[in-house]
């Protein structure tokens, strides 16, 4: 019985609920001292003077770093791996911390106070006096003076941000039915439970500087490279450790001021330093999803064939990041539309840098598209599901490539059954219960099924246990569990005998955890390493005269339930441990990797799904509640239905939050984040989340890898917003085109 596919409990669950799982801020490093950060209260200008005398003289203070005395840093690299760092469409903020007096956003770190206790550092930070030479900040996309048209997303030539397919202008002009609508979404913040934190320790190894970083990162190797480049060290002199992450959602990967400040502070005081950021700071230095203003223009025939689609996005970034929310990601592939164009305009504002956030582009771009499709269905007097079926894409409409595997029709069919779609009265504003209007809505969801290259190491021990390792990350997503299952199957061992280790940059290479690629990427690497160590064991046994397998060629041997046996006579064989013990080897190790091949050029890889929502709207008070949320997903073969279920309902809850309540407001004059705590910045409570019904088709993707598994981290978040918004239309007859749908927007006025 394979372990994959089983609803195994989280292997780290007990560690987490008992507090034994060690998170970054919890490492007990001898001699540790603490940093507290002073941030900018203005959004644009320069530091004219910074008076640190009182802070420097406060009890326990060891150092105060400012732009005047901080160690100099080298510029960030242009690219790390395939990912473009700098320039328009690049991923990160390129300004290095404390290198100049310039201020580009409120909340920008201006000083670090290091003291012997956290409390003393915090107190001394309040004593730093900054004199500003302020300038008027640019805070509105519409009036920004610096607007650009980035060419690609993260430098990926396969993801151009300004695209035309066919002749959308002519098709729109000729279309008998036209629809144009503008959708706006608010800035939202990732706000994982675990705050950003870094512990930095410098030491001399062989006479040279060596930096150990404990950091809340889901990009171990990228961080290693960023630190090495910035601090002018060889990459091998930086070691990054992070065995557990308390949630990330896109944060904790692509913005580097926090670890850099900590490393600089540790260098200055000559002791290990910890900086754990406060919740307030998460609204400035941890990244965000930028606001968007999206214009959707659709042309269609009267029988509902979409002939043209234009999706124009205006979004924003900071002064020194080119990150662009790629809103057309769904529009460019979802429907069989012959004429399309996609444009992304980026306004550079005096606001903190955005970065990817769960379903970057898909979540808010998919919301706009799927709301516009709903509007078109209403205009054509067609059932929203039917309109989608009439425009079903049998191949990728942009590239013309066939899908690796697509079963979206089944998702629609099952979803409409689950919610009771056909029993509703399709007339808007026709269903009520007491003071509440009832509405049904649906939307398509998708997510690119990416796969990258990774390596892993597998070790068999003489006692019959095994260890598989790779420098991937556990974000709370279930990585430890799923990779243990995959490794166990590949080693033909029961899961109890296999451990999986991750979270350390000295382990075999794995990419950043992001883009829902980890299972599809690291799973095959773990398999390859397992295969390699079993091959080594086979030749060991074949060469050993004392083995029952002596003389057998490796091809004649197979692994079965912890034993190597002859394929031709499975009774002949022996346990792995027995082979090692006899040859006096404590363990046997092999490292191998796996990467995607030319299938990537042949097929278009996506996951799909359909989300259906039922809502209750009380217009008199402006309250909106989600009564039911059903999702049916086509995500390939599931490695673990239990952790998958958690990922998907977590994603749906996050999508629900973005729809109903999440918004960060920056003061329109100062650019300071107005609300900076989780009492007033709302994420869904239990009372906001209905019991979500989730199903999946479970059809393996025949092309992605032998495992047939695609990632599922983000697809749950996509689709939910449009399903709910469309349900609000059905309930009320009103189109609300601005997220979030808070009571002030819903209330009868």
């Amino acid at each position, binding site marked *: 019985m394979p372990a994959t596919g089983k609803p195994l409990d989280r292997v780290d669950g007990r560690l987490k609920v008992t507090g034994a799982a060690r998170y970054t801020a919890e490492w007990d490093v001898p001699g540790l001292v603490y940093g507290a950060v002073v941030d900018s209260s203005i959004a644009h200008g320069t530091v004219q003077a910074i008076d640190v005398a009182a802070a420097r003289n406060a009890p326990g203070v060891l150092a105060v770093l400012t732009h005047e005395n901080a160690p100099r840093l080298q510029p960030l690299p242009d690219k790390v791996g395939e990912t473009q760092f700098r320039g328009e469409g690049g991923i990160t903020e390129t300004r290095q911390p404390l290198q100049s007096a310039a201020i580009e956003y409120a909340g920008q770190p201006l000083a670090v106070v290091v003291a012997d206790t956290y409390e003393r550092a915090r107190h001394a930070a309040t004593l730093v006096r900054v004199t500003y030479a302020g300038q008027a900040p640019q805070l509105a996309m519409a009036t920004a003076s610096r607007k650009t048209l980035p060419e690609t997303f993260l430098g990926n030539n396969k993801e151009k941000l300004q695209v035309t397919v066919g002749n959308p202008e002519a098709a729109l002009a000729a279309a008998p039915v036209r629809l144009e609508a503008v959708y706006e979404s608010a800035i939202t913040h990732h706000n994982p439970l675990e705050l950003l934190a870094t512990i930095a320790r410098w030491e001399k190894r062989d006479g040279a500087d060596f930096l150990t970083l404990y950091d809340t990162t889901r990009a171990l190797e990228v961080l290693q490279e960023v630190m090495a480049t910035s601090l002018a060290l060889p990459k091998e002199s930086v070691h990054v450790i992070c065995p557990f992450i308390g949630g990330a959602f896109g944060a904790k990967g692509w913005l580097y001021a926090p670890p850099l400040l900590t490393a600089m502070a540790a260098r200055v005081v000559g002791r290990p330093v910890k900086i754990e950021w406060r919740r307030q700071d998460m609204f400035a230095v941890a990244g965000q999803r930028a606001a968007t203003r999206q214009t959707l223009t659709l042309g269609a025939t009267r029988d509902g064939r979409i002939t043209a689609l234009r999706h124009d996005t205006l979004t924003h970034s900071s002064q020194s990041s080119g990150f662009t929310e790629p809103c057309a990601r769904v529009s460019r592939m979802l429907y069989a539309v012959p004429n399309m164009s996609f444009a992304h305009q980026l306004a550079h504002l005096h606001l903190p840098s955005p970065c990817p956030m769960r379903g970057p582009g898909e979540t808010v771009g998919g919301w706009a598209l799927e709301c516009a499709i709903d509007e078109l269905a209403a205009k054509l007097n067609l059932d929203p599901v039917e309109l989608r079926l009439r425009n079903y894409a049998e191949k990728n409409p942009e590239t013309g490539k066939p899908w690796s595997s697509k079963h979206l029709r089944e998702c629609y069919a099952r979803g409409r059954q689950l919610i009771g779609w056909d029993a509703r009265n399709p007339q808007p504003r026709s269903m009520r219960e007491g003071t509440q209007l009832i509405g049904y809505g649906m939307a398509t969801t998708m997510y690119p099924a990416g796969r990258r290259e990774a390596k892993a190491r597998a070790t068999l021990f003489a006692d019959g246990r095994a260890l598989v390792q790779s420098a991937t990350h556990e974000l709370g997503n279930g990585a430890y569990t799923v990779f243990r299952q995959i490794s166990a199957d590949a080693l033909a061992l029961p899961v109890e005998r296999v451990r999986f280790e991750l979270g350390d940059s000295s382990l075999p290479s794995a990419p950043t955890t992001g883009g829902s690629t980890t299972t599809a990427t690291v799973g095959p690497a773990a398999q390859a390493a397992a295969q390699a160590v079993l091959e080594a064991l086979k030749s060991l046994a074949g060469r050993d005269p004392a083995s029952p397998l002596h003389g057998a060629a490796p091809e004649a041997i197979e692994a079965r339930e912890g034993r190597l046996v002859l394929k031709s006579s499975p009774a002949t064989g022996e346990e792995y441990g027995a082979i090692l013990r006899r040859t006096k080897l404590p363990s046997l190790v092999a490292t191998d990797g796996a990467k995607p091949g030319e299938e990537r050029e042949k097929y278009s890889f996506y996951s799909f799904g359909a989300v259906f929502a039922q809502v209750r709207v009380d217009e008199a008070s402006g309250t909106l509640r989600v009564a039911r949320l059903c999702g049916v997903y086509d995500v390939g073969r599931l490695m673990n239905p239990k952790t998958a279920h958690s990922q998907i309902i977590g994603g749906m809850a996050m999508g629900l939050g973005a729809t109903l309540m999440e918004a960060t407001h920056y003061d329109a004059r100062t650019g300071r984040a107005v609300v*900076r705590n989780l009492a*007033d910045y709302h994420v869904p409570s239990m009372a906001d989340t209905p019991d979500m019904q989730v199903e999946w088709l479970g059809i393996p993707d025949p092309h992605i890898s032998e495992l047939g598994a695609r990632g599922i981290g983000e697809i749950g978040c996509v689709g939910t917003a449009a399903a709910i918004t469309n349900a609000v239309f059905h309930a009320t007859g009103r189109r609300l085109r601005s997220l979030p749908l808070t009571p002030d927007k819903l209330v009868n006025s």
Partner: protein
Amino acid sequence: MHPFQYQRAESAEQAVAAVAPNPAATFIAGGTSHVDLMKEDVHRPALLVDVSALPLREISAFEGGLRIGAGVSNTAAAYHADVQRRYPAVSEALLAGASMQIRNMATMAGNPLQRTRCPYFRDPTQACNKRQPGSGCAAIGGYNHVHALFGASAACIATHPSDLAVALSALDARVQTLGPRGPRTIAFPELHRLPGDTPHLDTVLAHGELITSIDLLAFTGRSHYLKVRERASYAYALVSCAVALEMSGGKLQRVRVALGGVAHKPWRLPAVEAMLAEQPPSEKLFRAAAQAAFADARPLKHNAYKVPMGRDLLVRALLETSGLRPLQGPAGTAFAASVGGVAGQLAAPR
């Protein structure tokens, strides 16, 4: 965070004696409001006098009503059988506020003394007359989504966030205190102030004046609390409403109404109360009352939504309290108080 001394008071008198002469001293009870503000550098006490262990933790019968000790936890008060049965508005207001964990720590005196949720008050880099008198008010020209419709001043437009205070105001509860000059009684509607040009003073309490109990007066009528918020649980009120009314012979007798989330203090509506007295209850009457109640509202840039929301809430609260419309959940619970209810299909337990 600033350095501070901590001391545990042995008696009410000693607590008052420790705080009154020292301008940098404050009481601390559950700490759920005060410690947050200390961590945000908004409150900077040099001495904390802990009153949570004082013998002020009883709920007892008192002159036909109930005396609730200042140190009784929000949870204990909310689930006290007499409170829930005789003053359901109090239980509803408490249970529709904060979270279970916070209510377990929070006290009956601390709750009405929590500070505003005006976001600028919580950011020491921004101008705020309440935090720093004379520095200005960043909210007036800023993001004033949660701010006041009534009674604001040119110095401050903040609202008071406590749910409990709204219910206590409508019930005309009494606040017993012990100050440097001895004990006194304050009618609850007089406890909080309007901002005027001294918004740093939330209440009429003198420095070092300790609340010892909150007294609920004898009352045989009905009371009820309703709250609209941006999420279904664990959020402050956008607008809330408490009603206490007595009926006889099919007519309203005395009606008392307070709105929350609209002013620097629970906003009693004396004109509306007079308009409703001695009238047979009807939706039409309540709608007229709601029109009158908001006639002099002064909406700001981002809070005009509170006017229609508040009007409807007032009508709804009057309908439900007078029995013309059923409660949404069992009286004395958060289900009765939460407008919109919880997500999911399940109706509130009855």
